[in-house]
């Protein structure tokens, strides 16, 4: 395998809109062939960072290099190297699949001689063979989504941006789509995914968690689950639910309790002491305890703890 090489370098990036700091001293790198996810609440600064990476917004300060180019100085050249697929794929429903591809090829400056072979490649890559002449309005969701991807990569960009790419798509099409993305990344394309859905985040090699303009965590999904959280997560069965929730929220060492159907997911400071102490604590309050057992953390737990804790801490830089 080739040595990793940075496709995108972001160094001390700041973006201010008047008095509001949308991006606050953010630094990271993305390698060739990497699928990097951006997670964060609405308004956290994810889209601002992506618009700067695309050369659509000027940074206030800091340096951003995309495919070796400085986005502040060469935004046009940067745009030739990137592809973008939005959440609501901007396809033309009254044009055929091939007409859409031709249209987007034109926008991205694919020349007439290049178009033929690129079209063949895109159709094959996206599994659209047999549907070339179908009106897009008649295609099912999964087909539309792969066509939108084909439109975004027809000019063979080195960097691809996806905004909640599989939101609302059925799971079978979603899995096909992510398989396609991983195959594309394996050819050296760097893929950025912006989402607040954790089941999309699980498909990323690394995740950048953004909150109020700052990078609060960066790592593989496994690393984040292991290290970004202090303490652990317990499944607690306890009845009656309402009283048990109130008691758990007050219990020593408990950070958060959430109802999942007929049980609780309880985030605790430390797993061992909680396992020892919770049964007694709950039964002393007249509650009926069932199973209490550690369960693996989900990315959502990491997200809620990271972002939630930052809010409580009042926004001091980590």
């Amino acid at each position, binding site marked *: 395998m080739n040595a990793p090489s940075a496709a995108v370098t972001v160094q001390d990036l700041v973006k201010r809109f008047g008095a509001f700091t949308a991006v606050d001293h953010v630094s990271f790198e993305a390698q060739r062939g990497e699928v990097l996810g951006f997670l964060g609440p609405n308004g956290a600064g994810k889209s601002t960072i992506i618009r700067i990476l695309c050369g659509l917004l000027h940074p206030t300060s800091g340096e951003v290099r995309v495919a070796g180019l400085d986005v502040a100085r060469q935004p046009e050249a940067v745009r030739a190297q990137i592809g973008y697929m939005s959440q609501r794929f901007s396809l033309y429903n009254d044009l055929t699949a091939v007409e859409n591809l031709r249209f987007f090829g034109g926008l991205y400056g694919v020349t007439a001689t290049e178009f033929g072979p690129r079209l063949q490649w895109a159709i094959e890559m996206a599994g659209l063979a047999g549907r070339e002449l179908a009106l897009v309005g008649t295609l099912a969701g999964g087909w539309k989504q792969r066509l939108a991807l084909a439109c975004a990569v027809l000019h063979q960009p080195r960097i691809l941006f996806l905004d909640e790419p599989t*939101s609302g798509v059925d799971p*079978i099409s979603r899995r096909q789509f992510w398989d396609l993305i991983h*195959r594309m990344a394996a050819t050296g394309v760097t893929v950025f995914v912006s989402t607040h859905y*954790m089941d999309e*985040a699980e498909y990323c090699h690394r995740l950048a968690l953004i909150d109020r303009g700052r990078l609060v965590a960066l790592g593989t999904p496994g690393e984040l689950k292991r290290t970004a959280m202090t303490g652990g997560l317990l499944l607690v069965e306890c009845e009656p639910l*309402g009283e048990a929730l109130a008691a758990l929220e007050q219990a020593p060492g408990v950070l958060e309790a959430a*109802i999942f159907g*007929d049980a609780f997911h309880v985030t605790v400071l430390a797993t061992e002491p909680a396992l020892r102490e919770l049964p007694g604590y709950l039964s002393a309050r007249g509650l009926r305890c069932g199973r209490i057992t550690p369960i693996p953390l989900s990315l*959502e737990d990491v997200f809620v703890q990271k972002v939630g804790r930052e809010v409580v801490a009042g926004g001091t830089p980590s």
Partner: protein
Amino acid sequence: MAEPAVAITVDGLTKQFAGFIAVDHLHFAVAAGEIFCLVGPDGAGKTTTMRMLAGVMAPDAGSATVAGCDVVRDPEGVKNHISYMPQRFGLYEELTVDENIRFYADLFGIGRRERELRAAQLLAAAGMARFHDRLAGQLSGGMKQKLGLSCALIHTPRVLLLDEPTTGVDPVSRRDFWRLLYRLAAEGVTVLASTAYMDEAERCHRLALLHRGRLLLCDAPSRLKAGMPGAVVAVTTSAPAAVRDELQGMPGISSVLVVGDGTHLVVDDAESHLPAIRARLRAAAIPFSEVARVAPTIEDLFVASVGSQDKGGS
């Protein structure tokens, strides 16, 4: 405990639009005080089902009752007992939070004293009390949804119908939203909510998994997962694509999926396959740190269920 009363019954409910069947002979029942989720991708029939249960769209066949009212014979009667929050809830962006609530209170004929009491409770529970005079247009996505819910709850419904209430809402706000739903359920309100997000469905009491208008599965999330045929195995590896290429097509493995830091497999029997998978990866000199059984997700169930019902896929 007394036998729980039934809040919603759905019996063969069917709706067609211009040659395609949006809802296809649905059957399910929801107990009073239950949080029940309709789960499925776009086009599964979630919104059409909600509309029929809200009495705003007539079914082509079948019947349903909501809070004891027949939605076909008495659609107006249904409306007295429910609150329905459609996907695009009509908030007035140029009005404040208080003014939006007051508008809905007037629509439902709620007097001033009751309105003020209830609005204060709802906004406090939603963590929005200090935003009461902010314009709705200046709220975040999560807060808009919570305001929509507060408006829908300004009268006390017996059944709450929520169509994709958390779409576009970040995980922190989503947890607040679910906390509110559980509070309502504890007060005896029945909640029927829809979602396209399979991970969110883990939170409800029971769910109906829908695909192209049809019911795939209906039960509590934990029981559905326990009943999944086969097992999900996670291979933690720095070379997930190599793992996929090596294991795809191996007998007994029905699905191979590359995720961020590994590969997920669906196998027909975990006990016999775990050692076989490890041996095969070692023989192929593919590096891995762990091969272990993991709990299936609702998405795993959906894929397994659709795969066994129709091989048509996408």
